[in-house]
């Protein structure tokens, strides 16, 4: 006789990469099949925020931290209304959540939202594989979905690529909504939702900003319809090379000289609006420990990242653009990837990383203050 409840979690599952490498483990969350781009995230905390970050749409996230689910799921920490990852890979899921805010277990939550996952695999081997070979397509199969390996591989290779994917519209709000300022309202900001995280408007609201969140399809007229003091372009999933519509909207904003701030996808949109290219990183930056240097102050901030693409802009000089001079304001010290852009002649800047920091350190919160300063400057 055993009191073990461990039997329940023993449904076999298999993870198949498009290059043919296979990992076998156990089902986690929903049983079934799923496809996406395999990426790894190195954050040791914040799985709830990661799962609900719309930028992870169509990605299968591999957690490098072995224990996931320890603090369960609460109702305060999600970054959007649902889980966006297309699949979830963990080594040792918690059996029992422990936290005073926890409402239910992560396993239950994943299953309830139909997110197919796999547990018990060598996540470090998988991470090293992705590091060496680059992010690639992946499928997870469990229960009835498990077939012979060749058939599974063929299905993975049929799945769509991330490069060239235009996904903002799939995750963004369809209707505009307003996040009211906390305390006295000082400014109005139009935020173009390309996959916005809940914490971003909250960080603005904390600073007295009333945020009008607009759908990804919003036009320049829609933006100015709210009489904004500033315009914001959010993070979001997909390949920035496909984001022609937001790029043209941003160009409209730049022409008018309205204070502008972009995060993540928003940074890539600014890059494109200024005429720079974007490219896909081999395996991206996903984690909450990335050293970014603010080149204006020389200070280093530890920051939250989630990006698979980056802007291709020269680090060593000021560039001439249709909107005046522009410079790379922030770089990642690990690999010198462009992490921020700044216009010298117009009130516009953006960063590739996540100053709203959910999950992640709060070191870069000053950027919201900079945005406020730009808007104050414009008024004065």
């Amino acid at each position, binding site marked *: *006789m*055993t*009191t*073990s409840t*461990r039997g329940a979690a023993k449904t076999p599952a298999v993870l198949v990469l498009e290059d043919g490498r296979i*990992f076998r483990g156990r089902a986690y969350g929903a049983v079934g099949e799923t496809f996406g781009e395999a990426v*790894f995230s*190195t*954050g*040791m*905390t*914040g799985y*709830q*925020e990661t799962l609900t970050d719309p930028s992870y749409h169509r990605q299968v996230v591999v957690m*490098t*931290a*072995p*224990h996931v689910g*320890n*603090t369960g799921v*609460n109702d*305060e*920490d999600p970054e959007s209304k649902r889980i966006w990852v297309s699949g979830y890979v963990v*080594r*040792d899921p*918690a*059996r*029992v*959540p*422990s*936290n*005073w*805010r926890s409402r239910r277990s992560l396993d239950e939550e994943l299953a309830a939202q139909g997110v197919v996952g796999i547990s018990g*695999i*060598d*996540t*470090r*081997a998988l*991470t*090293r594989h992705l*590091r060496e070979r680059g992010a690639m397509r992946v499928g997870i199969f469990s229960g009835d979905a498990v077939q012979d390996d060749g058939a599974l591989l063929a299905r993975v290779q049929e799945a769509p690529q991330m490069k060239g994917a235009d996904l903002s519209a799939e995750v963004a709000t369809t209707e505009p909504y307003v996040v009211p300022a906390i305390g006295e309202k000082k400014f109005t900001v139009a935020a173009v939702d390309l996959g916005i995280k809940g914490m971003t408007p909250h960080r603005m609201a904390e600073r007295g900003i009333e945020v009008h969140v607009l759908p990804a399809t919003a036009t320049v007229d829609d933006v100015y319809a709210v009489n904004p003091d500033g315009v914001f372009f959010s993070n979001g999933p997909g390949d920035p090379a496909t984001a022609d519509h937001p790029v043209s909207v941003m160009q409209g904003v730049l022409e008018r000289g309205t204070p502008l701030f972009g995060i993540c996808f928003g940074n890539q949109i600014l890059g494109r609006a200024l005429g720079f290219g974007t490219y896909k990183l081999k395996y991206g930056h996903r*984690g*909450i*420990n*990335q*050293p970014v*240097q603010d080149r204006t102050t*020389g*200070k*280093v901030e*530890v920051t939250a990242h989630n990006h698979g693409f980056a802007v291709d802009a020269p680090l060593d000089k000021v560039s001439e653009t249709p909107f005046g001079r522009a410079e790379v304001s922030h770089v990642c*010290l*690990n*690999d010198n990837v462009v992490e921020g852009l700044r216009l010298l002649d117009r009130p516009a800047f953006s960063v590739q990383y996540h100053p709203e*920091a*959910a*999950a*992640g*350190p*709060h070191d870069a919160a000053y950027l919201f203050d900079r945005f406020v300063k730009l808007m104050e400057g414009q008024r004065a």
Partner: protein
Amino acid sequence: MPKRTDIQSVLVIGSGPIVIGQAAEFDYSGTQACRVLKSEGLRVILVNSNPATIMTDPEIADATYVEPITPEFVEKIIAKERPDALLPTLGGQTALNTAISLHENGVLDKHGVELIGANVEAIHKGEDRDQFKEVVEEVRKKIGHGESARSYICHSMDDVLKGVEELGGYPVVVRPSFTMGGAGSGFAHDEEELRRIAGTGLTLSPTTEVLLEESILGWKEYELELMRDKHDNVVVVCSIENFDPMGVHTGDSITVAPAMTLTDREYQILRDIGIAVIREVGVDTGGCNIQFAVNPEDGRVIVIEMNPRVSRSSALASKATGFPIAKIAAKLAVGYTLDEIPNDITQETPASFEPTLDYVVVKAPRFAFEKFPSADSTLTTTMKSVGEAMAIGRNFTEAFQKALRSLEKKGSQFTFVGETGDKDELLREAVRPTDGRINTVMQAIRAGATPEEVFEYTKIDPWFVDQLFLIKEIADELAEAPELTADLLAEAKRHGFSDTQIGEIRGLREDVVREVRHALGIRPVYKTVDTCAAEFAARTPYFYSSYDEETEVAPREKAAVIILGSGPNRIGQGIEFDYSCVHASFALSDAGYETVMVNCNPETVSTDYDTSDRLYFEPLTLEDVLEIVHAEQQAGPVAGVVVQLGGQTPLGLSQALKDNGVPIVGTSPEAIHAAEDRGAFGRVLKEAGLPAPKHGTATTFAEAKAIADEIGYPVLVRPSYVLGGRGMEIVYDETRLEAYIAESTEISPSRPVLVDRFLDDAIEIDVDALYDGEELYLGGVMEHIEEAGIHSGDSACALPPITLGGFDIKRLRASTEGIAKGVGVRGLINIQFALAGDILYVLEANPRASRTVPFTSKATAVPLAKAAARISLGATIAELRAEGLLPANGDGGELPLDAPISVKEAVMPWSRFRDIHGRGVDTVLGPEMRSTGEVMGIDSVFGTAYAKSQAGAYGPLPTKGRAFISVANRDKRSMIFPARELVAHGFELMATSGTAEVLKRNGINATVVRKQSEGTGPNGEKTIVQLIHDGEVDLIVNTPYGTGGRLDGYDIRTAAVARSVPCLTTVQALAAAVQGIDALNRGDVSVRSLQEHAEHLTAARD
């Protein structure tokens, strides 16, 4: 902005002897720092009284002063060396306190020395409880998070009693200010406890200050390690969660990295507070450690304390993450910023990031309560553990079970067989935190306790409790499975079960389990600690095992030598063995081998990834070592495994390793047996014609009595197969012998008691020697200052021997050679002799590096452990002489007449322990080793060297004042001359009536003082114990009267410990002290670096 150009020389202060709360981790940190500073082109001047450290190796610093770390001696060094800067943050509380004294008494200003790494204001803000509360309050105002426990500062007992009322009653926490490792703190549940703890605390605190605090017992406890540079860049290197909730000192807790039960929101709050605190305190070129308590009910965060320096936790965090905090702290101190310093492990990314872990690290403390049977074993806020083991796994259960077996202590691994006992009783027992509580909890779970019950009784976080249930469920599956399938075995290994545990559950031998496992292809893989969860390629092969899929051990060409370390520090096996292992690694690397280190002690230099070519952070059990050997044999040629340098731990594995086909280099397992087995060793002695004290073995009292009757009392009795003199006792009569046999639980026909004639009044001598099969190199001869019968580890000794002549040395050399040859040593051997009358008895021989190797090496300027490692791999002494590793001619037995005298003194942990009534434990030395560390005093004459050793160990000898003398009858004759000398030096003598009478008859005046048992006199005359407590005694000489009936002596000695009054417990020590006092009063005490001593010695040798 690169390094400062205005600093050319830096004085680094080490942490001195190993004591509880301040151990080998500071050698690790200090060594890193010295190397960094040296490589930056700075002249590094080091002071550390601890010879057993790598940092005091002459090549680590430019000028190495093995001198007492007191303001007086450090001032002499400053005056001589005139350093530009002083770096005080790497030598623990000792260095910090010394630096503060030198600042306050104006020495630093006078000599123009700048404090770097932390400024005085920051040190005070961080360490002073009052000021730190203000810091936390400021932080709360700025960021809205963090608070201090409500508290009350007291400077007197009246304050203390008032404080309890202010806080709303008991229990309260008492914390003395400015003490090390939380010394003197504790929980008071009622007024009696309060008076005791606070009374001691007020005495211990250099500022006579204690803090009373609201109780946060049972809250979750966390630590963050932070670093900040002069540009205000801050990184959090590591988060640590304590498995044991608040109430147990973090040094005594099982701790886990990274934090396991925090959401990101809560973690970021701690991080924000931590950053705000380091800014507010003003640590701007270095690191700090901040401790937090979190209420599990609502997340309320209390900031407990911060250490504005490198600490035990920072060493742990460095090993846990691969981020070398001390190294980087040293770079920050000389002006670099974090982004200018590369991450060693990736080499491509900078140090201005936060390590992320894809594994779990568990640290478990190792205690030594068996050495202090009268001490209360309850864990409190005063640290009591003497060492720790760390383990890494890919999940908590794997790391946790590895950590428990790394402790290498009977019963430390979970057991799943046998009766469990009563559930309720076990749960009640688990309320009290003790060494091994975790095993009690597991027993309670086996006995049917629910997770809720375990939490209710222990407050261990439910997630951790569930992990214990997970382990137990797997044990159940193992027990119930019809056969050991590959899946089940793999699952058990994945959760850290050892072959031994599985064998126990299945009723199989360990090696059978291993065979089955290997047949099924289940072996561990080795993963890399890389600071970045594999985001970047790692260049540093720092490995841990896991039952996972893919190994990261790379193939290699060069032949590897695997060096087995010594595991967690414990009394009897400490940093000295790590020293030898590190030396072997350096020497073998120089000789062209690929060096592979295996160890599980996070405090050490050996587990620095910089030390060896490859590091395996693994338990030192047969299973774990065999798997590493296998992995390395897969990677390339393995020349052999070195077992003789890490103490008894690897030595104990040698035969089994050999039986499994592992090549052991150096002294063979058979030779080890010849030295360790009584019978075999007896034959070696007989063949060499050497006498040993009469002895016999017994399994009953009758047998023991017969032996004792034959050889005569006193006899030395001990269980066989013990380390560090465990359970050893000198028995003076039959009554005690009977009691001893009755009390010894471990006696059985296969484990008899050894009964030896005890050589009263003999001179004990330690010899360290090298033997290559042909030639003997006598490393050094140490003459003990205390008589035979006191464990060599606890005895002070002098090198060269101060009273032995050429004839004695000749005999010692011949005997040593006879034994080394007879045993078959290839490498180091340590032999203990006793010179009684004119007979040189052999007490024991250890065919391995001994505790004294670093001392001998430093005293004679010859690297014995390096030579031993080379000899193990086939070099001869003649070759090493030719190479220059050993002197071209002569050896440690024939030092020039003007060679410096080195004195080693042991440091005892008395002040750490209290019995259950809160009284101190007795301080008398005996055959069981109880010291935690040692210091070295070196000078041209014995008296000064001895005085320095005392100053380094316990504080300076008094040069005037009042000396109290009370000795046993047998010591009364030998006391007279030293007593007269004390009077000649102006001491006023006090004595108990018996001793005073003897002194008087010899023409020495002594004031008679009342014994404790006599109580206060009719006119309020104080007893000696009261006088000591009132600070009216400057020196105490008190030798114990045999066994039993020693209450007076006990009270005197514990009072001496409480007041830090030098207390000599042997007449030999008194004689040495008198010579020391004489030297001090002549005022010719100077300081000299090891490099200067070596130069002098080398010149004299040529």
